[in-house]
């Protein structure tokens, strides 16, 4: 018996030292760099619950869900909640919105693209497979995935198609490298970014074109020669075939006119045909490979950012030696594990969400007034997308918004096209929407079982709790209860309106407006 126990002990020891779990490793690597400083206390159940709901379900929990979680005494309730949220039908919808905003940066919408993304997260399609679909941009397989390219191949007015922006976006979003400033010469400040890197990616997409914006159909003209380029400084003519930064160059075969296709394109049906040498097919195949470290690092870093509010390399698209990771070992670990798990996004989400770092409070450690975000000692406030905000507002106020309101919320809270939504960013137009929009004001009038009507039926002493749980997913503190009761007493003659104003003050608050 004793021998058995010691064996178990040995096995356990071995598994700890040789197969440390990812959440444990995350916390070890973060704490290793705090240099004696304190980390914030763990988030209370309320803050954790709200955060996890917003991250994985794209909305806040209902009062019942919150109460049930708070009263649950099981020690593994947080892990169970994460599992439950990752398995819920809200997860694919939330991820479709999240990846849409990240990949399209508000350039436009396309229903089949949204469906494609949603289906991916329903089936838990891995990130490498998604990247393959998106970059392959086939008109027949993975319908809708081609929108990433097709939208960027549209041209506006008299302006030509912006191939430079397409090249840049592939580098930024899939490889974590913004090569924009290496288009005309080697990057002047970033030694790692060479003109060859930009041109190599450019050579993959230079012959792509938009067949039909309505169907997001993309095709390629044959590529039979290398891409010519020269530095504006050095004026030495150079050439490159399609290649990834630091990777192999794919030489276009010198095919004669008429011999470029296996299946010729059909101009009548607009079916693009099948090329013998298709740079897009090579790009789709080569870029998401496990041995492409850029792809794995970028993937790990972006998934981390989505949950933690800041990249380990930050900005997200400036991976290079002079912009080092805040936690290089951690990033290496995330990239390696992500690749080892075949780029399973859901798996990585869960590992990060189980860490203490994810589950920390957003309040600074006591006595501190400023914490460097890259230390991850305190949870970072994350921006809520227009989609998250609208869902959370409906949940909080007990109302249903129509498509017109969705449009308004998008206008008020979304960034302009090509502006990544990666920071909390209060704006005048958002404030004006909250202050004066008729739809928002209508939510604060008792009607059809909405929050304000529900509150109106409660006695004054019960209102604060229901209100705070509904809107801020937490119980009011004693002073807040006092404030609410006092305010209601003062405004006894216009109780409904007073309740409406109280609800508005929480809905329009900074606390509601971020994922803290």
């Amino acid at each position: 018996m004793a021998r058995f126990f010691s064996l178990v002990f040995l096995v356990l020891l071995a598994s700890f030292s040789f197969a440390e779990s990812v959440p444990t490793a995350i916390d070890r690597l973060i704490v290793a760099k705090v240099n004696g400083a304190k980390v914030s206390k763990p988030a209370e159940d309320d803050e954790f619950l709200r955060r996890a709901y917003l991250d994985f379900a794209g909305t806040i929990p209902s009062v019942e869900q919150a109460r049930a979680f708070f009263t649950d005494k099981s020690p593994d309730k947080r892990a169970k909640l994460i599992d439950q949220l990752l398995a819920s039908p809200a997860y694919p919808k939330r991820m479709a919105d999240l990846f849409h905003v990240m990949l399209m940066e508000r350039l436009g919408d396309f229903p089949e693209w949204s469906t494609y993304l949603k289906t991916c997260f329903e089936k838990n399609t891995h990130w490498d497979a998604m990247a393959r679909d998106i970059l392959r941009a086939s008109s027949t397989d993975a319908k809708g995935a081609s929108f990433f390219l097709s939208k960027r191949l549209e041209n506006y007015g008299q302006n030509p198609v912006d191939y430079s922006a397409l090249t840049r976006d592939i580098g930024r979003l899939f490889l974590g490298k913004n090569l924009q400033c290496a288009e005309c010469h080697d990057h002047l400040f970033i030694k790692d970014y060479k003109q060859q890197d930009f041109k190599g990616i450019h050579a993959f997409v230079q012959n792509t074109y938009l067949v039909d914006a309505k169907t997001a159909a993309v095709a390629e003209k044959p590529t039979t020669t290398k891409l010519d380029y020269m530095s504006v400084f050095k004026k030495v003519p150079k050439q490159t075939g399609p290649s990834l930064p630091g990777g192999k160059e794919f030489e276009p075969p010198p095919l004669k006119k008429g011999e470029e296709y296996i299946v010729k394109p059909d101009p009548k049906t607009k079916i693009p045909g099948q090329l013998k040498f298709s740079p897009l097919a090579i790009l789709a195949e080569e870029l998401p490979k496990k041995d492409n470290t850029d792809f794995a690092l970028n993937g790990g870093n972006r998934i981390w950012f989505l949950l933690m509010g800041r990249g380990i390399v930050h900005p997200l698209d400036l991976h290079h030696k002079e912009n080092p990771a805040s936690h290089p070992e951690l990033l290496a670990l995330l990239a390696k594990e992500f690749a080892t798990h075949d780029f399973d996004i859901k798996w990585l989400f869960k590992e990060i969400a189980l860490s203490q770092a994810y589950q920390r409070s957003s309040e600074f450690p006591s006595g501190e007034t400023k914490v460097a975000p890259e230390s991850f000692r305190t949870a970072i406030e994350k921006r809520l997308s227009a989609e998250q905000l609208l869902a959370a507002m409906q949940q909080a106020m007990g109302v249903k918004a129509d498509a017109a309101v969705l449009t308004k919320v998008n206008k008020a809270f979304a960034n302009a096209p090509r502006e990544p939504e990666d920071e909390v960013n209060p704006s005048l137009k958002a404030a004006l929407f909250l202050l004066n929009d008729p739809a928002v004001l209508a939510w604060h009038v008792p009607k059809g079982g909405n929050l304000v009507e529900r509150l109106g039926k409660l006695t004054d002493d019960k209102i604060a709790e229901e209100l705070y749980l509904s809107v801020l997913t937490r119980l009011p503190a004693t002073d807040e209860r006092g404030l609410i009761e006092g305010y209601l007493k003062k405004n006894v003659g216009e109780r409904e309106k007073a309740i409406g104003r109280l609800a508005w003050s929480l809905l329009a608050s900074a606390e509601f407006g971020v994922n803290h």
Partner: protein
Amino acid sequence: MLRSNLCTPADHHLSRRQWFGTAAGAAFTVAAPSFAQTVKKKHKQVLFVWLDGGMSQLESWDPKPNTQFGGPFRTIQTSVPGIHVSELCPKSAKVMHHLALVRSLCTQDNSHSAGVERIQRGDPKNRGVTYPFFGGAVSKLLGNGDSGLPPYIWIKPMSGGFIPKDGGFLGPKYGALALGDGKPPENLLRPATMSVAEDLERNDLRNLVDKRYAERRSKENIEATKYVFDMAAQLQKRRDLFEAPFAPKDQERYGTHDLGRHMLLARRMLEAGVTFVKVNSYGWDTHGDNFNGQGSLVPQFDQAFAAMIEDLHERGMLDNVLVIAMSEFGRTPRINGHIGRDHWPEAWSLVTAGTGIQKGVVVGKTNDKGTFVASEEHDIGHMFHTWFKALGIDPKATEYDNEGQPLPIAHDGCKAVKELLL
């Protein structure tokens, strides 16, 4: 830190900076701190009138009567001996002693889509970043004064809203608040169903919630939130800017057409202290029937513009307001088969006036037929240098600061036009 005139490494990063340019986000402040204080002594403002599509220089500031391409209109004398303008500008002619004409513009773009943007951005050298429009740049460089109002208001026909694009890499804070057909954008004003007291009360409650939330958290988010709600409240206090009627006499002087109404509203915004007011007029692209087209548009402009100059002068505001009226290019001297004039960036004109600008002068000249510049040519970069100087901003010494990477505020291959400056 390396220094270069070309790209910046974090160009994309710039454009999405937390737009509260202070505290930790101080990455994008103006390089010379003392200068903001210098300018603050007397808040400078700008009126920028944009005649979209291309005003014909031959039917306005640089007429060539009785020449091959001169067209049917005559010239008239102005209040400044020796300076003549088209007979379509009789009212401006009377205030010419306040104005400066530039007849030597030679710019790069002859398409609208490229020209509108390049001209309004001052056509800086390509540095891999999207430069702000003039309004965004001036908002950044001069701030919003003490008015509490947004620094950049754009009065235009058709739709309005928040136009982040004009902020370029400085970020959406320096974009325009556009008043479509002079009306406030959606939700700018509190609905009539809510009283002032109620509005104040709900915001007091909100401030309490925010204060409590921020006690143990980063202040930046709360400060930015406070800033935007304060600005919303300030706009609300100044409902009169949007709602008060104009005196019938003023309406008559400025004209009841779009440009007249919008210019009158612009006067009110300048009086309220808005830093940069842009007024747009559309429909100047007279490829066909140029002489009726410009023949009806130029007098509308003339009426509204001259009334504005008179009023600014009367109020002593020309001392601190810089006035500019221009297009993305001029129009071809050659008259096409549709009796129209096409796009002509080679030789065209603009008018400028007000703070820092010479009064009653003409700079540059075109050849006899008006086809090319016959003096030193001036690109838009020269004009940006000139205007920044006129506003008290040294365009050589002042730079945007991108986390240590300096970006010039104007094309560094150009310099100010001395003859225009006081």
